């Protein structure tokens, strides 16, 4: 059974000043037995603090909060990017993230090669990639451009490619940072249909957004983050109580 479980998870970012990132200053402080000035110290920014979440199949969680409240950090933590500095994170089920689909696109490689590379990076085996490639090619609508290096693509075309690859995989948990709008008008409708289809089939959806309308439309739970703290546990969303 698919689930996501965060238990009092905190994420602290150590911020090193340019000088304390060097070995010399650390050695110097070790040799002298104390900190020299403020340079050897570093501050810790609390991005998330004691967040507890318990999501099961069928849950659609909307994350709201001001800029820098920790929504994206929470999504990245759920994606497995940041191991919690405190607390535990457990999950079952495959996870797909639409947080930043362009990350890791190889600019010098062709579209086809990017399908293979991205596929492997996403953890799919070569055979499955080969089988789904025609579907990805067709959906992206990039045609002969797929044999060209990605660096020749427009941003919209790159997005199309990345979106087509990431969304071609079946997944249990989907993470999204705002609703994606991809490409031109025609492709946008196509992408919208696919996104809707994925969102309705997926076990758990976590969607961070500033748009209340969107969250009301797609989610059945909502949690607000303020300065990295969940101001309330996820609350069930009924029409109009946001």
């Amino acid at each position: 059974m698919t689930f996501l479980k965060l238990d009092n998870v905190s994420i602290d970012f150590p911020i090193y000043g340019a000088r304390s990132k060097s070995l010399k200053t650390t050695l110097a402080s070790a040799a002298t037995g104390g900190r020299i000035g403020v340079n050897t110290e570093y501050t810790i920014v609390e991005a998330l603090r004691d967040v507890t979440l318990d999501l099961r199949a069928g849950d659609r969680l909307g994350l709201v909060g001001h800029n820098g409240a920790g929504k994206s950090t929470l999504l990245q933590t759920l994606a497995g990017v940041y191991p919690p500095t405190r607390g535990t994170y457990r999950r079952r089920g495959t996870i797909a993230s639409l947080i930043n689909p362009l990350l890791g696109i190889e600019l010098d490689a062709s579209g086809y090669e990017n399908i293979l590379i991205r596929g492997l990076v996403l953890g799919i085996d070569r055979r499955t990639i080969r089988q789904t490639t025609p579907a990805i090619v067709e959906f992206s609508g990039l045609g002969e451009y797929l044999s060209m290096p990605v660096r020749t693509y427009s941003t919209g075309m790159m997005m199309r490619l990345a979106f087509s690859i990431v969304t071609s995989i079946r997944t249990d948990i989907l993470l999204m940072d705002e609703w994606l709008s991809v490409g031109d008008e025609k492709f946008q409708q196509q992408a919208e249909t696919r996104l809707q289809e994925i969102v309705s089939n997926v076990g758990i959806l976590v969607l961070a957004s500033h748009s209340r309308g969107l969250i009301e439309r797609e989610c059945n739970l909502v949690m607000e983050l303020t300065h990295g703290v969940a101001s309330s546990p996820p609350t069930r969303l009924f029409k109009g109580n946001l």
Partner: protein
Amino acid sequence: MSELKIQPPARFRMSDTASSMESAWDDWWAGTRNVDLWWTLAWYEIVLRYRRSLLGPLWITLSMGAMLLGMGPLYSALFNIPLNKFYPHLALGIIFWNFLSSSINDSCQVFISAGPFLKQGEFPRSTFVWKCIARQLIQLAHHVVLYVPVAIWAGITWSPRMLVFVPGLLIVLVNLHAIAITLGIMCARFRDVGQIVASTMQLLMFMTPVFWFPESLPGRARFVLYNPLAQLLDVMRVPLLGGFVAPGTWWFLGGLTCLTVAVAAILYTKKRAHIIYWL
């Protein structure tokens, strides 16, 4: 806008689950067994380099060949060693030294250059270490071709003894892997380690019998050969020259391997989870 929540300086710690020995092993193995991923990533890095230039990585092979042609006659005269004895020694010296030093220099960037991947999801950290090693191996396969004409010219013939090269290379790979984990983690945290490593490698090149013969060292100076790189170089070079690897070399490398692997294992266990916070 938000106000920053800043704590007073304190030790940056990870939750304990992330740094247990068992999870480190699982993580390492998960990355290691996904050969298709790291090999493909390494392969494309080479292929893409080829694509925009006529010769690509072969440029390095070519310049290495030019270096051989120029240095061979000069140094054999300087050292007063017959060219057919000196040439194979020099060729393998340069080829394997290049492999060792570029692997070690590259290790510093292992995790830094993996940033775009590490920031999008959960990846075993060892994947990127293997990718680095795999790319260097592909490069080595380019360069080692240079040895063939040299060996034929010098009259070195095939003998089963040369097969010792295989376990030699394996031991080198284990060490390079461990060193890459160690340096990769250290460089992610302390960005100037890369500079230190680069200049140390340059110094070590002269301390290692890449160009000269270990036999020509006066007795007192033989301690120079206790430099690990000299031994790592020897275990690959000597078999291909048709010689015997000294038992002392095997013992030395056995000890060295235990040391590098132990350091790498400790760092991988304790600091693996920190890497992403440093990028």
